[in-house]
C-alpha cells in the first residue's frame, strides 16, 4: 500500500445480517473486501445460479466483478414483475413472499445507493424452504395480486426466475430453471486477481 492516502486503501465491507439488528463484516473471509476507491455497486445474478453477484465501479481503476460462490447458500426465487396498468417495469411494486414459515418483503426500485441501479427483478433467498406458500404483490396501480396454493407450487417451484404479469393468470408465466450450482461458479474457470 502506498503511504499517501486520504481515506484511501479502505476495505469494502460486507455486513452479514446475524439477526436481532446485528451485523458482522465478513468481507475479507468471503473474498469481497477489495481495496480500491470503490464508488457504484450493481447487484444481479449474472450467471443465473440463483446467487446474487456484484459489479463495482472503482474510481480511475478497473472494476470488481465478484461472482457469488458461497458454499452454504439456500434456495432462491427471482420474480420479474411486468406491469400492465402500472408502469411496465413495476417500479414501486411491493411484494410479500411467504416460504418456510417466514414472510419477506421487497420493493422494485430503479436507482439507489450511490449513482447505482440494481437488477430490477426481485430476488428472494428461501433458505432450506423448497416451496413457496404465497406471493402477494401490491402493484403501483393499487391492484393487490395474491398467488398461493397448490397451483403456485406446481407452476413455480423454487430456484427459478419467474415472470409475473400484473393481474395475469398463472399459466402466463414464463419460467426458467437456474442452472446447476455445482458447475456454475467453479473458481477454476476464471482468471482471478
Amino acid at each position: 500500500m502506498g503511504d499517501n492516502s486520504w481515506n484511501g486503501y479502505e476495505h469494502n465491507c460486507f455486513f452479514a445480517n446475524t439477526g436481532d439488528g446485528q451485523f458482522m463484516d465478513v468481507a475479507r473471509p468471503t473474498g469481497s473486501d477489495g481495496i480500491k476507491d470503490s464508488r457504484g455497486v450493481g447487484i444481479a445474478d449474472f450467471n443465473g445460479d440463483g446467487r446474487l453477484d456484484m459489479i463495482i465501479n472503482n474510481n480511475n481503476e478497473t472494476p470488481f466483478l465478484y461472482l457469488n460462490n458461497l458454499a452454504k447458500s439456500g434456495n432462491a426465487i427471482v420474480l420479474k414483475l411486468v406491469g400492465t396498468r402500472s408502469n411496465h417495469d413495476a417500479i414501486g411494486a411491493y411484494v410479500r413472499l411467504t416460504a418456510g414459515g417466514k414472510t419477506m418483503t421487497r420493493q422494485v426500485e430503479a436507482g439507489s445507493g450511490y449513482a447505482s441501479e440494481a437488477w430490477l427483478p426481485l430476488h428472494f433467498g428461501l433458505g432450506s424452504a423448497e416451496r413457496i406458500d404465497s406471493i402477494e404483490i401490491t402493484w403501483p396501480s393499487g391492484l393487490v395480486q395474491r398467488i398461493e396454493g397448490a397451483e403456485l407450487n406446481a407452476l413455480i417451484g423454487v430456484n427459478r426466475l419467474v415472470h409475473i404479469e400484473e393481474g395475469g393468470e398463472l399459466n402466463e408465466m414464463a419460467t426458467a430453471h437456474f442452472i446447476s450450482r455445482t458447475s456454475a461458479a467453479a473458481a477454476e474457470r476464471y482468471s482471478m486477481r
Partner: protein
Amino acid sequence: MARKRFLKITLKILITLSLICGVAATVVIYAMKSRDEEHARFFNTGKSINSFLSLYKHGIEEAFRKNDTSEITSFYSESYRSPARGRWVMQPAPAENDVTVFKLVAEGQEEYDRNALDRELSGYLRNIASIQNIWCKIDMIEKVELERSVVVRVKYILDGTDAQGAIFQDRHFYRWHLVNEAAPGAPFNWKIIQDELIEGLRVEGNARGFIDVEPSSVGIDFKHSRDPKLNAAKYSAQMKFDIIEHGSGGVSVVDYNNDDRPDIFFPDGVRSRLYKNISDSRTGEVRFLDVTSEAGLDGIDQANAGIFADVDNDGFSDLFVARYLAPNKFFHNNGDGTFTDLSAKMGLDFASTSVTACFLDYNHDGFVDLYIGLYGDAIHDIPRLPFFAQNAPPNRLFRNDSGRGFTDVTEASGTGDVGWTLAVAAADYDRDGLPDIAVANDFGRKSLFHNNGDGTFTEVAKQAGVLDFSGGMGLVFGDFNDDGLPDLYTSNINSNQRWFGEDMTVSQYVRNVARTKWLLLDAAEYKKFYDLVGSKWVDIGRDIGEGNSLFRNNGDGTFSELKNSHTNRAGWSWSVAFFDMDNDTDLDIYAANGWISGKAGPSADL
C-alpha cells in the same frame, strides 16, 4: 459540560448579534481569542496521537517479522498497569455462513503489567502465519488533557493468515489511556499506561465466497476514467472545489434486451459503456460483450450515473444519463438492441450539476417519473456551510407525460433540495401506497420527502429522525428485519480525521468563521441550521465523522438509528446495497469504501 454550554451560548450569541449588527460580533470574537491557542494545542495533540498509532502499526509488523515482542511493548509505559484488565482470549462464536467467528473477550479480573502483556502478545503473534495489512486509527478521543494525557478509542484491524492457512481479519476496539512522557517542551512521547478491550472479533474463511474475477477475462475491458474537464491540475484556476473529480463512478445493472440476463452499464468521465451479458445459460459460464457502439451509445462522457427504466411502457428499458456540468441525456431503447438519443425531445437535455437519479411513479399514472440529484457547482462554489451546505442548484423532479416527454415539476412538488446531493432513492417508507423520496447530501443532512398524493411532497427528515448530518454519499431502502417496512441505510464518512470533529474544533470553527465576512453572509444559513437542530448542534461535529447509519423503520412514520448494529464504521463510504448474499432469507449489506488512495489528505497522515 461547561465547554458545551459555552459553545451553545456562543453560537446563540453569534447568530443573534450578527443578525442585528456585525460590529457587535467583534466584541465576542475578542473575548474568544484566548481559546485559539488552546485549539492549536488540541490539534497538535491529535496529530501526534495519529503518528503514534501509525508507529504502533509498524511496531506490530516489526514484532512479527523479528519475532520480538519488545517492538510492541516499547509503546507501553514502564509503569503500564491495567487493573482488572483480564486475559484477552478468542472464544468461538456461532459461524456465519462459510465464515468462522471468534470473539475476543476479557477473561477474569487479572491485573496486567508489562510482563503479563508481553506473554499475551507473544501468544497472539504465534497464532499468525502472515500479515497482509494493519490499520490502527483513532476511533474517538474520549478525554484530553492537552499535551499530557489522552483517553482514546482505537480501531485496530489486522488482515492475516493463520497456521492452518485460513484467511482472517481481526477487528478490535481498544480504549487506551496515553500519557506524554516527554520532558516539557520536548517532542511528544506518548506511551500506553492502561488499556481496556471494548470489543474484538476475528472472522476467518477461505476468501472464496466470492470469486474475484478479472473483468477483462470475461469481456469487461473497462477502466474508469475521471472527467478530464474536472482535472484540477489543468483547470485549477477556474475551479473552486477541485476535489470532485475523484467522486465519479456509478454503475447500473439492466436487462436492456429482455433476455433475462442482467447487462452492465458504466457511466464514465470519458466514454460510458454498455456490456451485454452473453453468459452461457447451460453452463453458467459468465461472459460479457461490449455493445456500446452497436447500441448507439458511443461518446457519452462527463457521466456519473446511468439509470434505466421503461419510460414509455413499450417493454424495453430506456436510459437517463446524469452528467455533471454538461447536458443530461436520455436514450430511448428501440427494442432491437439500439438506442436513440431523444434528450431534447423528452425535455431532459438541460445542463447542470446532475450526479444521480432514480425513477418512481409519484403520481400513479402508470408512467415512471424522474428525480435527479444535483451536486454543487464545483467551478463556482464551495460547500457553504461545510456541515450544512445549502448552496447547490435544486434537485429536479420531472413528471412523465404519458411517455411523450417530461415536465419539470420541481417547484410545484416541493422537492428542490438545495443540498450538495450525491444520492437519491425512492420507496414507500410509510406504506401509504405512494412512493417517497430520500436524499443524501454531502456536507449536510438527509432529506425525506413524503409524498402527499396530490403532486406535492413534504420534507419530514427531522420528524422522521433521519437528518443524519454527515458527508452523505449514498442511501438505500430495504426491509432487513422482515417486519414488512422498508428500513433505511445511509452511507457517510467515517473518517480517520474524526477526532477533529470534537468540541474544541467546532468552537474553533465558529471563532474562525466569526472573524470572516462569511458569518454575516451566511447568517441566514446558520439560523436555518439552528432552527433545524436547536441545542443539539454541538454534537453534530461528533456525529459527522461517525460513519454509516442504519435506521429501523418504526412503522409510525419515524425511524430509529441502530447505533450498535456494527454497520457504521465502514470507512469513507459510497454506494451501499441491501441484498441476501447467502439466500438465508434476510438482507445483508454491502458498502463500497475509499476516498483517494495515493493522495495525501489536507492533514496528511491523519
